């Protein structure tokens, strides 16, 4: 079980989080059909670092991007995404 450092709550157990998708598979709602389908079905899937969207679903419910190593599971960076928030 990973330990993920939530940008809002600090280090927490993976159990509190849900995985959403990789950054390269985000479908921009404004994208044309070709671009949208490319994002949906063509992924880079690197054997190394990748950017993934996770949510602290059972914690602060906020969203973040993890830079995670696909082989070692090492998490190199976490950054918050979402609306502007007070500290």
């Amino acid at each position: 079980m990973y330990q993920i450092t939530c940008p809002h709550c600090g280090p927490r157990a993976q159990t509190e989080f849900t995985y959403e998708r990789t950054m390269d598979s985000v479908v921009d709602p404004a994208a044309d059909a070709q671009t949208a389908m490319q994002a949906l079905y063509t992924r880079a899937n690197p054997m190394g670092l990748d950017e993934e969207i996770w949510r602290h679903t059972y914690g602060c419910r906020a969203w973040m991007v993890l830079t995670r190593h696909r082989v070692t599971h090492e998490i190199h960076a976490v950054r918050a995404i979402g609306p502007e928030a007070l500290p």
Partner: protein
Amino acid sequence: MILPGNAIVTDATSIIALPAAPLHALEIWSNPEAVAKRVQKALGFALPPMNRSAGNAATTLLRFEPTVWLVEGDTSVLADTLGDDGALTAIGGGVVRMRLAGPHWRELLLEGGVFDTSAAAFPVGATAATIIDHVGVRLHAQSDEACIAYVPSSYAEGLHHFWEAALPLLGA
């Protein structure tokens, strides 16, 4: 309500479901700093930072989310402070407040949990949302003797039973 003067001091840990109370979600979607100033003026205290609580006799604000505060109690002074920058939504019908009291409440919350409830990690006044025995719960460390758990109503009975069953393990 337990007043400091008449609090019953006991060795045992107890779990009590508190009566329903008004609870609101206060969300701020724009101009957070300006809203924070208006709110502070109206309430007389500042919006608490992440994973902290603040309050007075009438209203307690608990922050579990970056843009949302849980408001317990009176919200009458808040509505006018939000304007088009935020909103209040009633959620009290879906939450049961459970009071975990006694010297071992921190230990009890480790049962089926994944969150460090030690005083160092979760001091008095702190709040935290976590998962306990597969149920999403929100915690408020009220004092060293009591913690309030905000539990989804549908799971309240199940979790109450789960905690009762774990009581014999405490302090062992």
